[in-house]
């Protein structure tokens, strides 16, 4: 142990009782160590006294403390306001897209009109009876008498006139079967054993007006109509799509339908619309990686984005839809904090000004403290877009998409150039570029400004 070690342990207050005894003995034996001991105690005493009597610039200390304290209060207010706004906008961000989505799908549904769509016929023969009519009849268990009255007159769209050999749509066909079943004609006997007597029974005077139409079905083999009968649930008139398709694909069935050229136009695709073609609902997911950005004054930025869109093809090669997404900014921005003895006007972007109203002039210097501000900001947005193909080459085509929407920071607009490669039916690989211009702020001062990014985008698209 060195000479002064015990002495220092004493000064540090770490000495034990035994060590204290040893130290006292050492001091007795070594007067020089005793002198050192006294010197250290003297210095220690004066240091403590010096601390007590230290001359502090109390006003200056208070000012610095008050300024920072006020700055914290302002920060807290801003943070509180921001969180309130975020909460407020978060509600809107759920409601607005939900409203947009509802309206959009309502629009799609309205143009599709499921009643027309279901067993819709492309030949604009919209006068055919609708299946719903029959469902009503079935569900309400209308009696024969009522139907007698209602069907005494030729129903619109079933058989327009005597000479028209146009066969009815499938509901009409089923109706005809029932007509046959319930009529007193000889033809009806053929099928009577296959039909349930509890089914909707509609009496119809086939001979009166439409005997010729019934003749069409006389040529059809019984099993075909059995299939048809199976396809139509006799109790609730629900159609089984697969069975209907089987029927439509049957040669014998088709043979009968080709009696009239109009029959060829009958399309049994239940999801067909006169407005939207078969591959018209498109869902597209796009992931974006930033290439270049303008206007965000920070360094080492990473900007990622994700876009999800839903669209409907409105005309050949052009579609209208909704898209929503988010952009994430990560960066370490340089930040300068200043303290000035002179009042400084409003801070500007990237700079926090702490004003010290120090009239004493003791500290006229402007203090600049450089620091790093970590930015991790997410911006959610939603908007509508219009997309149009302008180049098509076999499985590859190129389109441009213009969108306009709102984000939690303000307005946003983007222009996308998208290349699409048809991988397989309904699955399309998409890639391209995305230029966005938007209102946003990515610094502590929350000063809004116009920013823009340019990103690579890639994703996948499904068409239904």
């Amino acid at each position, binding site marked *: 142990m060195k000479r002064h070690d015990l002495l220092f342990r004493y000064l540090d207050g770490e000495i034990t009782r035994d060590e204290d005894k040893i130290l006292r003995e050492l001091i007795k034996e070594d007067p020089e160590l005793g002198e050192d001991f006294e010197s250290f105690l003297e210095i220690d005493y004066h240091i403590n006294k*010096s*601390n007590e009597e230290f001359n502090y610039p109390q006003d200056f200390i208070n000012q610095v403390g008050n300024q920072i304290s006020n700055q914290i209060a302002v920060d807290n207010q801003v943070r509180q306001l921001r969180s309130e706004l975020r909460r407020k906008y978060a509600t809107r961000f759920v409601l607005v897209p939900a409203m947009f989505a509802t309206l959009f799908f309502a629009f799609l549904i309205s143009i599709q009109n499921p009643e027309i769509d279901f067993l819709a016929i492309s030949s604009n023969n919209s006068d055919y009876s609708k299946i719903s009519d029959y469902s009503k009849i079935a569900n309400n268990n209308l009696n024969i008498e009522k139907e007698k009255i209602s069907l005494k007159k030729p129903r619109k769209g079933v058989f327009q006139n005597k000479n028209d050999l146009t066969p009815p749509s499938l509901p009409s066909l089923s109706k005809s079967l029932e007509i046959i079943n319930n009529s007193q004609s000889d033809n009806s006997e053929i099928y009577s054993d296959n039909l349930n007597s509890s089914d909707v029974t509609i009496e119809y005077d086939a001979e009166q007006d439409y005997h010729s139409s019934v003749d069409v079905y006389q040529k059809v083999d019984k099993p075909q109509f059995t299939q048809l009968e199976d396809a139509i649930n006799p109790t609730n008139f629900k159609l089984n799509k697969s069975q209907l398709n089987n029927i439509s694909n049957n040669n014998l069935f088709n043979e009968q339908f080709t009696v009239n050229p109009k029959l060829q136009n009958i399309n049994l695709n239940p999801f067909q619309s006169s407005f939207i073609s078969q591959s018209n609902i498109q869902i597209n997911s796009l992931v974006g990686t930033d290439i270049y950005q303008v206007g965000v004054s920070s360094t080492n930025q990473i900007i990622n984005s994700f876009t999800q869109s839903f669209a409907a093809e409105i005309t050949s090669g052009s579609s209208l839809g909704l898209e929503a997404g988010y952009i994430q900014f990560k960066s370490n921005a340089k930040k300068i904090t200043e303290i000035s003895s002179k009042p400084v006007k409003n801070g500007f972007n990237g700079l926090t000004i702490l004003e010290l109203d120090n009239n004493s002039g003791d500290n006229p210097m402007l203090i600049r403290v450089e*620091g790093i501000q970590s930015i991790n900001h997410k911006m959610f947005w939603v908007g509508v877009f219009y997309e149009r193909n302008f180049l098509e080459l076999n499985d590859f085509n190129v389109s441009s998409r213009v969108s306009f929407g709102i984000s939690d920071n303000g307005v946003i607009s983007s222009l996308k150039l998208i290349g699409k490669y048809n991988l397989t039916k309904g699955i399309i690989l998409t890639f391209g570029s995305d230029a966005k211009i938007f209102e946003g702020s990515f610094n502590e001062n929350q000063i809004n400004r116009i920013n823009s990014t340019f990103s690579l985008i890639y994703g996948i698209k499904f068409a239904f």
Partner: protein
Amino acid sequence: MIKSGYKRLRFDEKNITKEILNEAGLEFANGSQEAFNFLYKVFSKKVYRFCVRMLDNHDAAKDAFQETFIRIYEFRKMFSGKNFESWLFTIARNTCINYIRRHKTNTKSLDEVEIGFNPRRHLGIGIKEQIEEKLNQLPIALKEAFVLRDMEDLTYEQIAEVLEIDISLAKVRVHRARLKLKELLKPLLKEINEAT
């Protein structure tokens, strides 16, 4: 940990424990104005004293003091919750070292450099002033260790954290500084002893 202990505490340094300081530090990191006010009240004078002793110039010390607290405010979220006092003095010490580097006019190494001009230095008013003056003759590595230990009462563990060195090295530096300061003050102390 005592929840919001500093709020219930009547301001009295004797009652302030390390846990209370750390708790206040964490609340300050989360944006508590009250916690900042408490910590500022506890440490502002200590930090100011430290800056003055490190820079030996009141104006420079004011700048360093402001800068220290601005940095603390700016980087409050980086406080880990472990030891607020060490974290605070680390920032204060780094600020002072940066200030010295920015303002040094000679080519001496950092260990040898003497800061500023103090007219009191040559007046020899009393032992307090003499101690302050002789302190500036110590190399900065010894001086900062001595100031933190004997003037600001930090533990060796805290000094090691602030200076980013081992505890044993912190002790060595403090001991060397004490011995050297004693040697520098020897004539004066001898004079005082003889006078009494």
